[in-house]
């Protein structure tokens, strides 16, 4: 087995991983850095983000407002110390990206422009037309090229963390083009592997978002936190699940039901402002959880439009006019013409809620450190708890930067405090064991299960039991199903026996990760007997601060469902209150 010895390994080269890598390289050019990714960095799913990144920059805004929007948006499940750190760092990180060349859209006077976003009281979302994530990712990737100390391992699939003596001392990864296993011996590992939306069938998430990193940490004994909080986005294209950014509504787009009625006013987000004069933090600019729940009710009432792809409502952008649509939302126009045959300039666009983002993730503290020495996590795979029970759109891209950097700096501090040498013999032994497990999976014959079959059963049961609205009964069924699928997974056999770019093998590994992650979502949801943010129970419709103003933490078990425990939420200055999205007019 090839052995790579470095100081710090970063798993994942999306927005968070690249930001971490640059921070490491800038801090100390002599650090030996390995950046592993199962796809070329610019393929990472950060590229799909459209709307923008939040950070206080304009005179009419304040850090306090960003704080209260975020905490209220998260239904008070955010750790407020982390939120405070986050909003303070946000403008600096976005400015740093500006220096690195990010093509932010501009005001006529040459300053960076901001747009409104759901749940935000003030316009504070920096954007690069409607390809913000794409530009952020490419800016970071291209910037990273100037640092020779960042050794990239593109198309290396990470399979295991190497934990010895209670410390994380590296990881193993398969070089996809050859099938060869490598061991990366590192004093510290930063996991930046992104989300896990693929545990559902209808999602905005790309094929690579399979929760690998969450599963890596989980199996190594680190808890996954708040996994039951899964964000739906209100405006996905039916059929494909392709996202139309919240920027559509930020620019003034409206949602109407089959009667042409702006139904959100019936769900505590009204009154309806005149067309083209959106009022921030109301109606279409309410938070995502509320908008998706409203869709669900409209569907029950029979107010949705039935289309060839199922029930939808309409997004109406026509009043924005062709010029503004072309300038601010060109990608949205392109996507909806191509994939549903509707031109936003002239047509209503059918849309429906779609699984979008995992608020939960690897449990970290405000330093992006996990409970395991040497192991850090940042980005969507992590849960530092700035998003609480419902993330506000455009906070995530900023989070990648702020906590990607923070993880890097803390990892440096950790390794420079001494005594962090890798135990070569012990770690090599672990790596060999990891390789043995892969070989077993690879060589198994007489398997009875198929990858696509199990995957379909998993996504179906997640949609059925753990969707926008949940009940004890539906969740129990899903939990049982998932546990069954986990045991059936051991009967999967690979048809592909080639060592070269064996996507059959990687699909199997991804499925294994997804099953573990999915179970934490379902079990966490079953145990949380209240409704909060994106977690809505039809049998427990109220928020219950007495019992559940707590983070869920889930611990791995080899065969049984995860063990659930709870942690206190850090509350500094904002006591839990009522989430009000009806504007100032009551």
């Amino acid at each position, binding site marked *: 087995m090839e052995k790579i010895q470095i100081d710090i390994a970063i798993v994942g080269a999306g927005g968070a991983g690249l930001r971490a890598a640059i921070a490491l390289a800038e801090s100390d050019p002599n650090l030996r850095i390995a950046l592993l990714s199962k796809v070329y960095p610019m393929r990472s799913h950060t590229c799909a983000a459209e709307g923008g990144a939040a950070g206080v920059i304009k005179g009419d805004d304040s850090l306090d407002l960003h704080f209260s929007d975020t905490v209220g948006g998260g239904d008070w499940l955010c750790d407020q110390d982390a939120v405070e750190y986050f909003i303070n760092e946000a403008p600096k990180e976005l400015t740093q990206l500006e220096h690195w060349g990010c093509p932010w859209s501009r005001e006529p006077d040459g300053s960076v422009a901001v747009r409104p976003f759901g749940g935000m009281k003030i316009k504070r979302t920096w954007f690069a037309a409607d390809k913000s994530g794409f530009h952020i990712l490419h800016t970071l990737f291209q910037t990273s090229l100037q640092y020779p100390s960042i050794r990239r391992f593109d198309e290396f699939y990470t399979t295991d963390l190497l934990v010895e003596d209670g410390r994380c001392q590296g990881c193993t990864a398969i070089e996809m*083009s050859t099938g060869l296993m490598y061991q990366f011996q590192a004093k510290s590992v930063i996991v930046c592997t992104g989300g896990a939306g693929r545990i559902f069938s209808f999602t905005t998430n790309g094929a690579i978002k399979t929760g690998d990193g969450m599963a890596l940490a989980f199996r190594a004994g680190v808890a996954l936190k708040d996994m039951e909080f899964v964000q739906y986005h209100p405006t996905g294209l039916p059929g494909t699940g392709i996202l139309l950014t919240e920027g559509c509504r930020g620019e003034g787009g409206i949602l109407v039901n089959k009667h042409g009625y702006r139904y959100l006013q019936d769900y505590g987000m009204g009154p309806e402002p005149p067309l083209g004069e959106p009022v921030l933090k109301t109606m279409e600019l309410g938070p995502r959880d509320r908008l998706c729940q409203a869709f669900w009710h409209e569907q029950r009432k029979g107010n949705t439009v039935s289309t060839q792809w199922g029930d939808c409502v309409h997004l109406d952008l026509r009043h924005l006019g062709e010029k503004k649509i072309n300038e601010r939302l060109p990608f949205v126009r392109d996507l909806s013409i191509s994939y549903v045959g509707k031109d936003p300039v002239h047509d209503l666009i059918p849309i429906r809620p779609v699984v979008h983002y995992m608020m939960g993730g690897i449990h970290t503290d405000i330093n992006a450190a996990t409970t395991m020495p040497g192991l850090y996590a940042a980005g969507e795979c992590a849960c530092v708890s700035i998003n609480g029970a419902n993330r506000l759109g455009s906070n995530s891209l900023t989070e990648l930067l702020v906590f990607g950097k923070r993880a890097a700096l803390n990892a440096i501090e950790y390794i420079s405090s001494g005594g962090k040498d890798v135990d070569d013999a012990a770690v090599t032994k672990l790596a060999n064991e990891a390789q043995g497990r892969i070989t077993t999976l690879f060589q198994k014959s007489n398997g009875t299960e198929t990858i696509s079959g199990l995957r379909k059963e998993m996504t179906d049961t997640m949609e059925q039991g753990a969707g926008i609205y949940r009940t004890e009964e539906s969740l129990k069924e899903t939990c049982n199903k998932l546990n069954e699928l986990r045991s059936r997974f051991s009967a999967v056999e690979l048809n592909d026996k080639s060592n070269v770019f064996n996507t059959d093998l990687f699909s199997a590994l991804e499925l294994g990760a997804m099953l573990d992650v999915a179970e934490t979502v379902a079990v966490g949801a079953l145990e949380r007997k209240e409704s909060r943010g994106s977690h809505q129970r039809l049998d427990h419709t109220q928020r219950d601060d007495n019992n559940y103003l707590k983070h869920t933490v889930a611990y791995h078990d080899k065969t049984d469902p995860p063990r659930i425990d709870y942690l206190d939420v850090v509350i500094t200055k904002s006591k839990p209150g009522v989430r009000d999205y009806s504007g100032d007019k009551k």
Partner: protein
Amino acid sequence: MSGKAYIREMPKTTWWLSHSRYRRYVAREVTCIPIGIYTAVLIWGLMRLSQGAAAWEGFIEALNSPLSILFHLVAFVFAVVHTISWFNVTPSAMRVQIGEDFAPGAVIIGAHYTGWVVVSLIVLFMAGV
């Protein structure tokens, strides 16, 4: 052990037959051959001119042959085709930004045609037509 990546060699002489786009490109490149020859003829004419009246007369005489007239016609047509194909791509090769927006392609192409006409008129004028 894994084998090697497979390299598909491109046929060195016939590659351009494989796609209409390539054939169009080669056709465009071919149109410049008569233009090249025409330029050589022109330089040769200048040389004859410098050698005195008799040499010049001889050159003019030679140009009057049917073959030469045919060649000049062909060269003219090719030159026009070549020019048009180049003018059509000028908007992307020479972008002109006025304020925020780029001058529309038609304007840039139009400017080239105008320039062409003006220069031709000047030449014709100097030639005493």
